[in-house]
Every structure is written in C-alpha cells, then in structure tokens.
C-alpha cells in the first residue's frame, strides 16, 4: 500500500530522516513514535508531499509519489493534522461538509446516514455540529477532525497525534475508531500506549539522523 525506499529528508541543511525504509500493507495500523524533534511529523508530512525526500523513493497504491500521480493517489488519502484551527465562524458541520464540495469527491454524497452513528461512537453531541469550530474544546475538535476522515471513508489515513491533548476516555474512543476501520491503512504519529500496543508495526524515530527502527507487532525487526 505504502512503500518507503531508503528515503532521506532534510529541512534546510539538517537531515531529519535518514535512509529510511518501510513497507506498509493494506489495513496495517502503524505507530510512529520517538522523542520530540526526532522527525515523526516530518515523516508523516513527507507522506503527503509537504516535505520532499532528497533521496529515495515513495510508492503509494503502486504509484510513484510524484506530482503527476497525485490526483489518483490523493483520492484515497485522508490527513488529520495535529491542530485543527477555526476559520472565522465556520461551524463543525461546515468543516465536515467542505471536502464534499471538492472536485475530487464529485459524485460522493455527504453520508448523512452514517453521521449519527459515527457521532455516537465518537461521543459527540448533536449540538456540536452547529457550533463554530472555534468554540469547541480541543478534544472535541480532534474528534470532529477524525469524524471528517471517517465520513470521507478513505483507504489511507495519516494522522498526526490524533489523541494528543485529549482526556483518557476520549483518547480510547479515538484510538478504537482508528482500529475499527479494518480495511483502512493507518499511519499515526502517536505516543498513545493503547495505539502502540495494538499497532501492527511500530516505527521508532531517532534524532540526529541515526538509523530508524521498525518492529512488527511482535517486536521483531
């Protein structure tokens, strides 16, 4: 599904990710962890094309991750950023519906039917939807962000600290939601104990360009 072949990513002159390889199969749940500044977010941002590797190759869904293939690749990607900020008076419902207005989702209807069920699972109250995003708590915003991805129902979910800064009970709600999507390939930057214990693959990042470790669910390299 996602293949990283000896990629090196630099920010300015600093090497953040060094000759890093990883193979992710369809449906895998991958946890990327490591101390702060070790390049976790950089790795995730490289998977969406925000940072570009100076060396190596990225293949997604069998296609080279190059601008010409982006329209095809991105049809199946959902990226959940670390911070979900409010744009003016945009309500949570506006935020959820916005992607459905994009050309890439032409033909896809906003799944009203699944909305209620997903909201119940994520423990979001109905009145949350009519609130401006800016008035929601950090934890609610995180769950609304994830809800957006669940409604889009994409094959690849890339999540940057999906449960950080959320209270314990809602953390579990978020993690369980990510694991419930058995077909979806999930790559999450996370320190969440539960996510790490359930993950199919754990990737530990090290700072200062040291080689990075990958272990499978049984701790084997």
């Amino acid at each position, binding site marked *: 599904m996602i293949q990283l072949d000896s990629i090196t990513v630099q*920010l300015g002159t600093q090497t953040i990710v060094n000759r890093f390889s990883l193979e992710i199969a369809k449906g895998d749940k991958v946890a990327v962890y490591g101390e702060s500044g070790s390049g976790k977010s*950089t790795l995730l941002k490289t998977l*969406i094309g925000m940072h570009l590797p100076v060396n190596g190759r990225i293949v997604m869904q069998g296609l080279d991750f190059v*601008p010409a293939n982006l329209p095809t690749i991105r049809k199946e990607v959902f990226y959940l950023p670390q911070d979900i*900020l409010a744009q003016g008076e945009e309500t949570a419902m506006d935020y959820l519906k916005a992607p459905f207005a994009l050309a890439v989702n032409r033909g896809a209807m906003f799944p009203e039917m699944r909305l209620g069920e997903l909201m119940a699972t994520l423990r979001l109250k109905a009145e949350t939807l009519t609130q401006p995003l800016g008035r929601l708590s950090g934890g609610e915003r995180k769950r609304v962000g994830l809800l957006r991805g669940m409604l889009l129902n994409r094959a690849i979910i890339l999540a940057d600290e999906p449960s950080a800064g959320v209270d314990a009970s809602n953390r579990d709600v978020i993690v369980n939601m990510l694991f419930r999507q058995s077909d979806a390939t999930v790559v999450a930057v996370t320190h969440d104990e539960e996510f790490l214990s359930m993950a199919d693959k754990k990737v530990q990042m090290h700072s200062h360009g040291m080689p990075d470790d990958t272990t499978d669910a049984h701790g084997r390299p």
Partner: protein
Amino acid sequence: MTQRMPMGAHDISNIGLILAAASLAVSVVVYAFTKVGLIRDLFISMGRMGIQLGLVGLYLTGLFRLNHPLVNIGYVLLMMGAANYSVLKNTGLKQSMFVYTFPATLISVGAVGLYFMTLVFQPQPLYDARYLIPISGMLLGNSMNRTIITLERFYSSVRKDESGYSALIAMGATVNEATSSNLKTAYRAGLGPALANLATMGIVSLPGMMTGQILGGSDPSVAIKYQVAIILAIYVATDLSALLCITFSKRKGFTPYGFLNHDIFKGKSSAASGST
C-alpha cells in the same frame, strides 16, 4: 473634446513656499507637546518629499518637452518597476516574486490604460506625456495599494491556517479549491478601503486630480468628467491587478505538491517552518 486650459494656475512665489514649509511649526509644537519624539522623522520625511518632487518637477518638464513615445513608455515601465518593488517590500514577499507581479501589473494597468487612452481620453498624440504619465501614475499608485493589501492578506491567511489548508491539499483539493476562501478574504480586505473612498468622494474630499485641474483653469464640469473616467479606470485596473498578482504568484507560491512554498517569504527559510 478637451478644453485647453486657458491659463495655468497662479504661480507660487518662493516666499510662499517658505511660508508653506513654516506651517510645519504646528506639527513640531504638537510633537514636542505630546513627546511623541517624531520631530526628526518629520524633517527627514518632509525633506525627502521635497527633494523627490523637486526632481520630478525637473524631469517631468524635460519629459513633456521631449514627448518621445519610447521615452514616455519607458518612463511608465520604470514607474511600474518601482510600484512592484514597493508591493513586494510591503507584503513580506521576496523580491524574486517580481517576475510574477510585474507581468500582472503590466497587463492590468497596460490594458486598462490603453483602453482609456484610446477610447476615452483620446489625447493627440496618443502617447502625449501630459496624459500618459499622470494617468498611468494614478492607475499604478492605486493598484499598488490595493495589491499590497490583497496579496499580503492572501498569503498570510493561508499561512495562518496552514494545517487546515494542507489537510485539504492532502485529500486531493486543488490549490484553487483550497485557497478559495483565502481569495475571498483577501479580495474583500483590498476592496474595503476602495469602496469606502468612493462613498465619500466629492463630499468629504475633492479628488486631487480634479482639484489640480480646477486650479489649473479647467471648467469644473470638464474636471469632473475626467475624474469620473479616471475613477472608473482605477477601479477596473486595481481589480484586475490584484487578481492577476495572486493568480500569477501562485505558480511560485505553492509547491508542485500543492503546499505553501515558504521560500517566497522574506527572512524565513523553509527549514524554520512547521514542527519536525
């Protein structure tokens, strides 16, 4: 169609100019009293203005006497260059963006200027410096102010919610789709002062050009016709210039992968952006 001015405005004597400068004493007293400490800046700015306008007076006299089409057009291009330099300086974008903003100004001010010169003002000859230079100057000056606000707001608003923008791009939005709300915000911000200015036009202030023409001896009705035409020209040229500046600058402002290109911003390298 135009009435030649029967006479120029009554000249200002040298003593008159000195007395005009003496009026600054009021500002000096105000600054001293309020202790804002801007007296030095006041003299520097006013001195620079005097020298700049003195020089303009000298070379405009020469330019009008020469009235050569290539020289006139060359001068307009020079003004355009200076306007673009100022736009980039005030929007926090690197001067290398000049290659995108200059063509935008050239097309918008050039096309609107040409339309108004050939069809509305119709000077003889068409390239007459007396018309071409001040009219281009007004179009440029106004486009510049509008573009500064619009361009600055566009990129700063994308930057402000870069994670939200990036999320849309990552899920397959085009740059145009993902920036549509930013374009709206930026355009409204730029349009606000322009509309406010129109609303009070003639009531609060008489436009400078009209004042000048009336002082120069023109019939107020002629002066008003010119003013209306120039306001329309300014309005269309600024609209076009703001839109084209954003459209052209997007080529450099966003990476081939659709993300905001931090290299366009002054004083901050891409390495410094975002968390690792």
